[in-house]
C-alpha cells in the first residue's frame, strides 16, 4: 500500500512553496513513496524510554557575550537582494490599495 499519494505530495509541495504538476508530480510521488516505505523499517526498532538525540555535543544554551561587534553594513546586505532600493528589499505588492 502506498504511504503517500499524489494528492498528499501536491499539498506538501504547496506548504514547501514548490509547484508540482502532471508527470513530475506522479514521478516524484512514486519516488517519495518508495523512500518512505524504506524508512518504515524504523517502526520495528524498540525505542521505549530512549531519549531523542537532536544534537551530539553536550552543549545547551550557548550564549555569546552581550556586546556590540562589527557586522555587515545594511548597504552590503540590501545590495545582495535581487530587487532592492536601499534601505529596503523589494517584493511583489502585498497590500491592496
Amino acid at each position: 500500500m502506498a504511504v503517500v499519494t499524489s494528492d498528499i505530495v501536491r499539498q506538501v509541495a504547496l506548504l514547501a512553496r514548490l509547484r508540482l504538476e502532471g508527470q513530475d508530480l506522479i514521478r516524484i510521488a512514486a519516488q517519495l513513496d518508495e523512500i518512505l516505505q524504506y524508512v518504515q523499517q524504523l517502526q520495528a526498532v524498540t525505542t521505549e524510554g530512549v531519549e531523542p538525540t537532536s544534537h551530539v555535543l553536550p552543549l545547551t544554551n550557548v550564549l555569546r557575550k552581550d556586546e556590540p561587534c562589527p557586522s555587515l553594513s545594511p548597504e552590503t546586505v540590501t545590495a545582495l537582494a535581487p530587487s532592492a532600493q536601499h534601505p529596503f528589499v523589494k517584493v511583489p505588492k502585498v497590500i491592496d490599495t
Partner: protein
Amino acid sequence: MPSSTLASKTIHELQALLAGRKTSPEEILNDVLARITRLNPTFHAYLEAPDPDRLRRQLAAQVNAVPNGRLTGIPITVKNNICIAGEEIRCASRILSGFRSPYDATVIERLRREGAVLIPGANMDEFAFGSSTENSAFGVTLNPRAKKDDPRVPGGSSGGSAAAVASDLAIAALGSDTGGSIRQPAAFCGIVGLKPTYGCVSRYGLVAFASSLDQIGSLTKDARDAAILLSVIAGHDPRDSTSAPNEVPPRPRYEDVLDRLPKDVTIGTPTLSGAEALEQNVRVAVDGALETLELERVPVELPHIGKAIATYYIIATAEASSNLARYDGVKYGYRATSGSGLGIPRPASDDRRGGQGSGQERLAHSPEPTPARLPRSPGRAAQSALREMYLDTRTKGFGAEAKRRILLGTYVLSQGYYDAYYLKGMKVRTLIKRDFDEAFKRCSLIAMPTSPTVAFRPGEKLEDPLQMYLSDIYTISANLAGIPAISICCGKDPTSGLPIGLQLLAPPFREDLLLQLAHAYEQRIEWPRMRASLRSPA
C-alpha cells in the same frame, strides 16, 4: 622540473621545496593553472575555470601579507558551499545565481591567515544533496581515475574537490560531509578524506544542509596533509554556537604527532549490514588492509547501524527542508522574473546599484508614513502575488533532488507524521550513537569500507534516488553519532583499476588516532608509489 610535477606534490612536499628555495609560489600556481586550463574542460572539477589573473593577484597579496605562513603559496580549492568573500557561492544551485558572499567563512579566514591561495568554485551536488556530483545545476564532474572509454562519477557531494585533488588541479581541498560527502568521493578518487568530529571545525560560513550533521573537512593526497589542514582549520569559534569548547587542535599539533601511534591500538571490525551490496573486490581490499596493519582486531557489534540510512533520510531531510526555506527570492540569489509573480518589473541592474533607480527617488520624496498609512492586513490578490513569486522562484531555482529532499523533510515534519518519523528518527539516532559508545569501550578505532562499491557510472543511479542513498551505507552513521572518520586508499579494483577506500572511525575528538593510523598504513603500503600508480590524466 617537468610540467605538472609541482601540481602533483603534497602540501608538505611543497613546503620543503619552498623552504629550500627549490621552487616559488608563482611556479606552483602556474603549474596548477596550466593543468586547470588543460583538464577542467574534460573533468569539470570546477564550476568554471578560475580567472588566472585574479588568482595571481591573490597569490601576490598573500605572499606579501603572510610570507611565512604554514600554507603560504599553497593552492587549495574550496567546495562551492563554503563562503569566500567576493566569490560566487552557488552551492551548484540555480537558486543562488548571482550571489557573491560578503564575508569569509571561519575556515577560510584560518586558511588565509596561513597564506593559502584559495581557488573557488569546486563543483558539488546541489546543496550537497547527492553521492555522485550529478545533481549540480552546472554540469557533472567526471572521475579522473576512470578509463577514458568507461567514465565514472567522482562520488559526491564533494566530487569537484575530490576530482581536483586527484587530477592535480589543486594541491588540497576543503569539502563538507553530512552523510559521507567527503569520504565517499575521496574513496572513489583514491585520495584521503577526513570528516572531523561534529563541532571540531567551525561551520560559520558553511551553507547549511543539515545543521546537526554537517561538518567541514579536508580532501588531500595523504594523511600528513590532512593533519596539516586540520591543525589550521580546527578550533573553537564563538560565531558557531555548536563549535566545541574543547582544546582543538591539540598541542602538539596533529602533524607533529603523526608518527606516535600508540602500540596498544586495537581495531574493531563490525559485522556489516547491507553486506549483500558489498562488492567482493572491496571486501578483499579492506580485509587485506587490516592484515597489513598487523594490529589486534576485535569483533564489535553495531546492532542499529542497519537503520542508519532510514534514520539519516528523516533527520537530514527534515533539517534541510527547514534550512532551505530561506531561499525565497527576496534576500539574495535568484528571483523568478517570469510568470505571474513578477511584482515589480524593473531592470535588475538598476536595483543592484540600490540608490540610482527612479523608484529610489520617488521613495525619497515620499512623505514619512503616518499611522493611517501603515500596512493593513494583506489583501488577497496582493498576497497571492508574493506567494506566486515564492512558488516560481523555488520551483525554477531548485533541482530535482533538492525538491525531493525538501518534500520529504516537509512531510516528516508535518503535523500528524512528526512522531512517527522525525521523533522516531531522533530516538534511533540515540541508539546508533550508543552502539558506537559501547564499541569504543572494546577497541580504539573501527574499520570498515568507505563505500560498498567502487565509483559507479554516470546515470547509473540518478533515476533511482533510494539506490543512490544506499550507496552511503557505511559513511552515514559517523555523522549521526558525530564521530570523526577518515577514508584512505587501500587498493585498486583488479578489473577496473579504480581505487578502493578503507574507512577508519574513532571516538569523538580522536582525529589524532585516525591520522596516526592512516599515516602508519600509508608507510606500510608505500603510498607515494601506489598513488603514482593510480590512473591519472597526463
